[in-house]
C-alpha cells in the first residue's frame, strides 16, 4: 500500500517538476529503470515469502541501477551493445519474480478459501 503511494508521489514529481536531465542520458535512464523495476519485483516477492530485508533491497535497487547504466555507457563507448545484456537479464528476472509472486498469491488465495470453507 505504502509502495503505491510512494510510486504515485514519484510520478507526480516527475510530471510536474521541471527538472532537466540532459537528453543524452535518456538511453541509460531506460536501462536503469529496468534495473529498478527488477529490484521492486524482487522486493515484492521477498515480502510475500516474508524474507524481505530493507538493506538488501535498497542496495540492490541503487546498485543495479548504477551498474546497468554504467554498463550501457561503457557499451556505448566500446561500441558493443552491452545494454542488451542488462535488458535480457533484468527482463528475465522480472518475469521470474512475477511468476513466483503469482504462484504465491494463488497459493494464498487457495488456502484462504480452504480456511473459509
Amino acid at each position, binding site marked *: 500500500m*505504502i*509502495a*503505491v*503511494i*510512494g*510510486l*504515485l*508521489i*514519484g*510520478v*507526480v*514529481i*516527475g*510530471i510536474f517538476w521541471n*527538472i532537466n*536531465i540532459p*537528453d543524452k542520458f*535518456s538511453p541509460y*535512464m*531506460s536501462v*536503469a*529503470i529496468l534495473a*529498478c*523495476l527488477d*529490484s*521492486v519485483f524482487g*522486493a515484492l516477492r521477498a515480502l510475500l515469502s516474508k524474507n*524481505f*530485508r*530493507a538493506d538488501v*533491497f*535498497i542496495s540492490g*535497487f541503487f546498485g543495479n541501477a548504477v551498474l546497468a547504466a554504467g554498463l550501457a555507457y561503457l557499451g556505448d563507448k566500446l561500441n558493443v551493445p552491452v545494454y542488451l545484456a542488462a535488458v535480457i537479464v533484468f527482463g528475465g528476472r522480472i518475469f521470474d519474480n512475477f511468476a513466483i509472486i503469482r504462484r504465491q498469491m494463488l497459493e494464498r488465495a487457495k488456502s484462504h478459501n480452504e480456511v473459509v470453507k
Partner: protein
Amino acid sequence: MKKYSAQISVALVCCILGFMIAYQFRILNKQSNIQNTTLSSTDLTVEIEQLRKQKDELQKNINDLQSKIKVYEDSAANRTEESQTLLKDLENSRMLTGVTDVQGQGVILYLSPNTTGLGNDLTSDRITDKHLVYVVNELLAAGAEAISINDIRLTPRTGIRNAGNYILVNEERVSPLNRITIKAIGDKNLLISALAFPGVLSDFNSVATYKYEKSDNIIISKNKYNKSMKFDFAKSFKQ
C-alpha cells in the same frame, strides 16, 4: 520498528522509480512530437522544386516588366532636358541599390579554403560569415563603391550570415568549402593597400589561402535578388 523502516524505504524507492518512469515518458513524448512536426525529406524536395519553378516564372515576369520600364524611361527622357537629369538621378540611385550592372577598376580577392586530405569537418576551421563581413567592411572602409561575393551583389540591405553548412548572402548560398571570389569596384590602389596592410587578412591564415589582384575592368552584375527596396517602416523626416 523494523517493519516501519522497511516500508518507508520501499516507499522512498518507489517514489524514485515513479519519478524516473514519469520523466522518461515525458522525454519520449517530447521526442515523438518533434518527429511528427518535421516533414519527410521527399516532401521537402518536392516543395523546394515547386518553389524553384515558381521563382523562375516570377523572375521572368520581372525581367519583362523591367525591360518595359526601360522602354518607357527612354521615351520619356527624350522629351525634355529635365527628364534627362531625372533619368540620370534614377540611374545613380539604381547603381547604389545594385539593380544595374556596374563596371570599373578595383580589386578581386580570392579565398581558397584550406582542405586537408581527410576532409575538413571542423566548423572552426571554415570560412564563416564573420570573415566575409570583416573583408567587406575593410573594403567599404577603403572606399569600395560596389562589392560582390561570388557574383552576388551586395546592397545596402544585404545581410551575411551562417546558415547550416552555408553562408547566406542576400539569401543566396555561398559554400565555405569552395573558392570564394570577392570583387570590389573603387580606387584600385586604395583597395589593394587596404588589403595589403599588415594584419588585415591575418584572420584567414588558419582557414584559407588568399590572393588578391588589381584589375582595370571589373564587372559586377546586378543583383539577381529582387527583394523590393521599399521602406515599410522608415519614413523621411525633416527637422
